[in-house]
């Protein structure tokens, strides 16, 4: 497990990092937690010419709430998200299920988002809660809604010269709840199936906002918009969640593989959607 030869640039500022990336071009890769990139390099699946280490950049390691948003910097580790007291709903539910403790100590939430692995957890969670990805390039900063950021399996709409510097996640103002139910074969495994659920309730107890997204059952993390539409405006009920679960099962396009059959994975989507929405509703009602 010996990687190919590469150059290492240690950036001290975002500006330096972006500049180094522009100079390195397609062969350059940013290194934050390295929990996907380094194993890929050791297996010689990835062989960047230049690694641009952003770990020394000051100010990127903050997770904070401000103006109705949760801000997550590019160096916030999964473990920081687990330990943070200011997350909510599906985010708090998902954090302990990301990889294993060792990976969580090094890997970053932004790195996982930028990696766009369809088996990654965070992009489904953010599709359910809503989020903007904040990117910085030579021409300054821009925000991209998560749905527009994800382009395909392992591809995003991030420019070749841009660095993801943070995430901006709206914090629900009223009663809300969420859950991330993940079926994994063992700790540290990718999801065989996972479902992110997010519900907001109005004063009457009716659903005023809903988010539902699936992991590992489509070529990319998938938002189930028709199920969300069915939920909004309705009172939470087992029948309603069963209806949403059928739509989620239809939206899933799993494949037969070593983890299980497509028919079974669809059944898990159905089951976890029902259970996830019920847990989200219960949390919202208690909030």
């Amino acid at each position, binding site marked *: 497990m010996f990687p190919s030869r590469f150059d290492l640039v240690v950036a001290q500022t975002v500006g330096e990092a972006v500049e180094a990336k522009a100079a390195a071009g397609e062969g350059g890769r940013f290194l934050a937690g390295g929990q996907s990139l380094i194993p890929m390099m050791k297996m010689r699946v990835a062989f960047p010419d230049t690694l641009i280490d952003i770990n020394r950049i000051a100010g990127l390691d903050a997770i904070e709430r401000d103006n109705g948003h949760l801000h997550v910097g590019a160096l916030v580790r999964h473990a920081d998200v687990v330990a943070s007291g200011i997350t909510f709903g599906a985010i708090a539910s998902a954090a302990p299920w990301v990889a294993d403790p060792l990976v969580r100590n090094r890997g970053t939430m932004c790195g996982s988002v930028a990696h766009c692995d369809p088996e990654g957890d965070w992009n489904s969670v953010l599709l359910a809660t809503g989020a903007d990805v904040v990117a910085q390039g030579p021409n300054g900063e821009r925000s991209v809604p998560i749905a527009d950021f994800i382009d395909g399996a392992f591809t995003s709409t991030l420019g070749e010269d841009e660095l993801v510097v943070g995430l901006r996640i709206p914090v629900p103002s009223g009663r809300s709840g969420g859950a991330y139910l993940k079926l994994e074969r*063992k700790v540290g495994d*990718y999801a065989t199936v996972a479902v992110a659920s997010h519900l907001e309730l109005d004063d009457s107890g009716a659903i005023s906002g809903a988010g539902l997204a699936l992991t590992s059952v489509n070529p990319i993390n998938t938002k189930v918009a028709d199920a969300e539409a069915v939920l909004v405006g309705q009172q939470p009920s087992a029948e309603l969640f069963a209806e949403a679960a059928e739509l989620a099962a239809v939206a899933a396009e799993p494949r037969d593989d070593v983890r299980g*059959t497509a028919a079974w994975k669809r059944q898990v989507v159905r089951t976890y959607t029902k259970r996830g929405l019920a847990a989200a509703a219960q949390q919202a009602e208690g909030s």
Partner: protein
Amino acid sequence: MAAPTTPAEIGGIGHSVQRKEDARLIEGQGNFLDDIELPNTLHMAILRSPLAHARINGIDFSAATDLDGVVAVVTGDLMDQHGLAWMPTLSGDTQAVLATDKVRYQGQEVAAVIATDPYIATDALELIEVDYEDLPPITTPQQSLEDGAALIRDEKEGQTDNLVYTWETGDKGATEEAFAQADRVVTLETHYPRSHPAPLETCGILADVNSVTGQATIYMTSQAPHAHRTLFAMVAGLPEQNIRIVSPDIGGGFGNKVPIYPGYVVATAASLLIGQPVKWVESRTENLISTGFARDYYMKGELAVTDEGRILGLRVNMLSDQGAFYSDAQPTQFRAGLFHVVTGSYDFPAAHIDCKGAFTNKAPGGVAYRCSFRITEASYLIERLVQNAAYEVGIDPAEMRLRNFIQPEQFPYETATGFVYDSGDYPTALRTALEEVGYEDLRREQAEARAEGRLIGIGIAHFTEAVGAGPSHTYDIAGLKMIDSAELRVHPTGKAILKLGVKTQGQGHETTFAQIVAEVLGIPANDIKVEHGDTDHTPYGLGTYASRSTPVGGAATAVVARKLADKAKKIAAHLLEAAEEDIELASGVLSVAGSPDRSVTIQDIALAAYTNLPEGMEYGLEDVTYYDPPNLTYPYGSYIVVVEVDPDTGVWQVQRMVALDDCGVRINPMIVEGQICGGLTEGFAMSAMQWITFDDDGNCIGANFMDYLVPTAWETPRFELLATEVPSPHHPIGAKGVGESATVGSPAAFVNAVIDAVAHLGVRNIDMPVLPDRVWAAIDEAS
């Protein structure tokens, strides 16, 4: 269990002495293969086939040779010039060292690069171009034996099909008679999937051949250094006195470090030709895709039973997937290891076992992964069958077992396939475990849960293992008898050194073998240094696998200690001016019978052995023993697992796991329990998640730890351990092997528990690993 006969400060048998080896291992002071650095060492990397079956039309390695830092590129042609392109396997087949004609599995060794550092060696692999011509891959043994299947071993003279071997045992006629008398026949067809020992430390070698003296010092991850030295001498034609194998600290073996792998041969040849040390350490992927796998048996078992639940006979047909080369590590005269122990813990007169093996385009192996040569497969089959028979007859699975057990008074008991079980009390073991788990209450809870739509299952396995190969009349590997040895020397100050033919890979030999000496001589276990693994400094032995260290090496240790005790008594008689037959030795004190004041200590004796001897006695307190065991030992156990199955997803969770083991006398109960917990975890892994499988093109799925799943503490159930202790009557200290019991016995308990949860729906089989989708599909189909 029997109380220890020695005080804690001596630490003889029965004391949970802290492991002597742990301090250095925990503090990072272990010395593993990759820790060993020699001056001028070169590093080797291996180019492996990406294809499962292809002809090699040519290899262009000129660009690799030209890379700065590359010293040599080795191909099959070069090896062939030295007569080393092929090597013999432990099962009498031959195996390609580096491919010359074809590649026969994905991951097969094609070429090797020797370079000044491992990065350059790996870079150079990318510069080698191999011209492959695709051949049809064969990925199942059923496909392999079809008419017209592509011939995998076309280089083998006289080989016209893909059949590896056929082997049968038992009495066919008597078995047919038993089946004719049966009220019903219970049939189970199941696959024990391919698994891999996956030791934490991968395999490796550092070969250092002195070009002037011809002395070959070979540091190697070896479970059997002495046997490996002899095999190296036979294969490479090196004079055996010039070969020294040093097996340093080993990070787990589990059978994976028994075979000789192509990388070892290439690295040794390269060191010989270049005149510098050559190191090769496998990557995780190399370990998983190319080194000895285990299991991969397709089994059909039929049990002839009466309506009263009596078993009359057993018939088994088995087809094994051997991969591209037949390299099972097993005793020579058995083609399917000790699979014929499949009659299990039950008393019935007739059995017939019919086995065959097939070549496929998969990695070779068939090692005894924490298993005494295919006993894992056998134990699994009979325990699954008996459970299913109980459902068909309509009696409780525990009662079914109790009605058919070999009874305590029947030992020694000869099975229908010729094993002579040494000792046991199976009914007591099962009843104790049933009581501990609260079996009757559980059955009530299960019925209540079913009424609420919840699925609870209770699975039992009562296994009997056959370990400690073995008696010279029956057992040899490559012609070498499976004896083992111990050499013991007590120094003048009363401290001792014990040298073993067996070799620890984590089992705790440095502690337990010292305890055996402490028990016999009364020298504190902490005063006894245990040395092993270096063939120049230890007596000959066949190594550590198949739970044979305690049954064979442990017996040798007890016998050599007793020889020294006899001499000590003679010296004591001389010192105490008493008759030798009046001297008693207990906890290190030698006294005159009836006059306990007249005594000397073993330490006094040690000094006298070098200073003050009776007339005519030879100086020193030292001896060596080679032990040829009269029989195998037969540990057993009763395991009970309780699971709950989620009917919506098929996900199952273990609620309870009660494991009663009887391995005879326990030398160090703490170490035994550690062994059992490890084995239960491996059994759980194979039942729940772990397998190596292949796609239709022969690509290995399970090539790293993301795909080959090793459970963590999070998934692993809590184990409740129990013990009974029926000594082995023929072992000098009554001990039986235990290292593998739990791996062998537990898979059937886990699988039976899941089946039991859905048996009322008519489900009788789910193949391992019992993945949730298989459970859900079984429920779906049944209902």
